[in-house]
């Protein structure tokens, strides 16, 4: 399966970035062969809607599932619409490689609803600015 992991760097020994929409890289890892491809996250600096834009990139790279720290409600809805499975709980103390190994052992649970406490229809606004109105 093709697993997309949010990563601080572009190789498999890089640390995880727990942020979904604003991680610097996405690593697309073939969980059978451990072949991978790093794609820079063009949504990282988006003022608003980084999560949704990030999902577009992930879907265009044909990932079957996403492994990250936590996914915001908008991004979650987009991932669901694209039928991409979501796994949360990856830690930035871990490397991408270790996380994939853990994933294969079943360390991460599939998430069926967006993380609690974020309100509805909005991420937590980690963007540097709220886009001019």
């Amino acid at each position, binding site marked *: 399966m093709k697993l997309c992991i949010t990563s601080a760097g572009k190789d498999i020994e890089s640390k995880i970035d727990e942020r979904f929409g604003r991680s610097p890289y996405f690593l697309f890892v073939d969980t059978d062969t451990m072949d991978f491809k790093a794609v820079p996250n063009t949504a990282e600096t988006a003022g608003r809607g980084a999560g*949704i834009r990030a*999902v577009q990139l992930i879907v265009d790279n044909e990932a079957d599932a996403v492994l990250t720290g936590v996914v915001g409600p908008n991004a979650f809805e*987009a991932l669901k619409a694209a039928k991409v499975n979501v796994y949360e709980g990856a830690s930035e103390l871990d490397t991408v490689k270790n996380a994939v190994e853990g994933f294969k052992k079943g360390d991460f649970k599939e998430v069926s609803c967006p993380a609690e406490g974020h309100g509805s229809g909005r991420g937590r606004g980690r963007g540097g600015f709220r*886009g001019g109105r």
Partner: protein
Amino acid sequence: MTERDTIGINDVIAAMNETPVSIPIIGITGGKGGVGKSTVAVNLAEAFVQKGYKVSLVDADVDAPDDHLLLNIPLKNSEDVVITQPLFIDDKCTRCRRCITVCRVNALFQPKNHIPVLIGDCNGCEACILVCPSDAIARNKKLVGKTFMSKNKNLKLFTGELIPGIEESSFVVNALKERVFKEAGESDIIIIDTSPGAHCNVMNALKGSDHAYAVTEPTPLGAHDLERILKLLSIMQIKANIILNRSDLPGAREKIQSVAENYNVEISGEIAMDDLLVRSYVKGIPVVRMYPGAKSSQAIIKLSQKIAAMHLS
């Protein structure tokens, strides 16, 4: 040289301040919240009405529109303020994705081989509709607020009200002003009461003002926020004056004076603390009507005379 090359920032600002009416427009603003903007606006309006003028008072604080409470006038003649939301037409959509690329708030998403879906917070800018080459996006509507017009003899009160939790309050302010320009009719003067702050909403409310009064108080907070609003007014090239409310508060009067000097803006009115003003405020009756002899009433009447001499003669 083409016409485009010769357009400078001053032309842009002048165009921004253009209005379809020739009635004098007075902005009541002030940066800080709770300094008495609405009290001043409402009483100024009442003072003009007492002098026989026809007044349009505009409550542009769409997050907390309270002028109708201060005047004890019910909100009437409601009109919806709606913004566009894209509605995708499957058999026309070519999946070209231009709409997704152009969306500044990243609200659109396209699952594989599917038409785009709206997931994020669309601000109704319509850029997606503009770039769609196949006419595949229809206009759906989303209610973001309401405007009201309540008439009471020579006073027309225009009120904008945003639905709580909706982000795009500027749409309500702009719709409110459009309505004012359409319905102010034979008014002699338009008084616009803005929200606190120095943001888009306040800018949109003040756009086109002939003169703006920044209400403040002699406190460090008042001075700080006064400076911000004077900076905004200077950028917008709107003539500014200061109204010092609670002027006898023992405090930072010299700070206000120093801001006034830095921005070369005069303090054109002072309203001292007045128990009668508080009593009228609690009753929802303008002090100039309830206690015309009160010192606060006299200060506001004097200000209205200054404004009349400048803009209504």
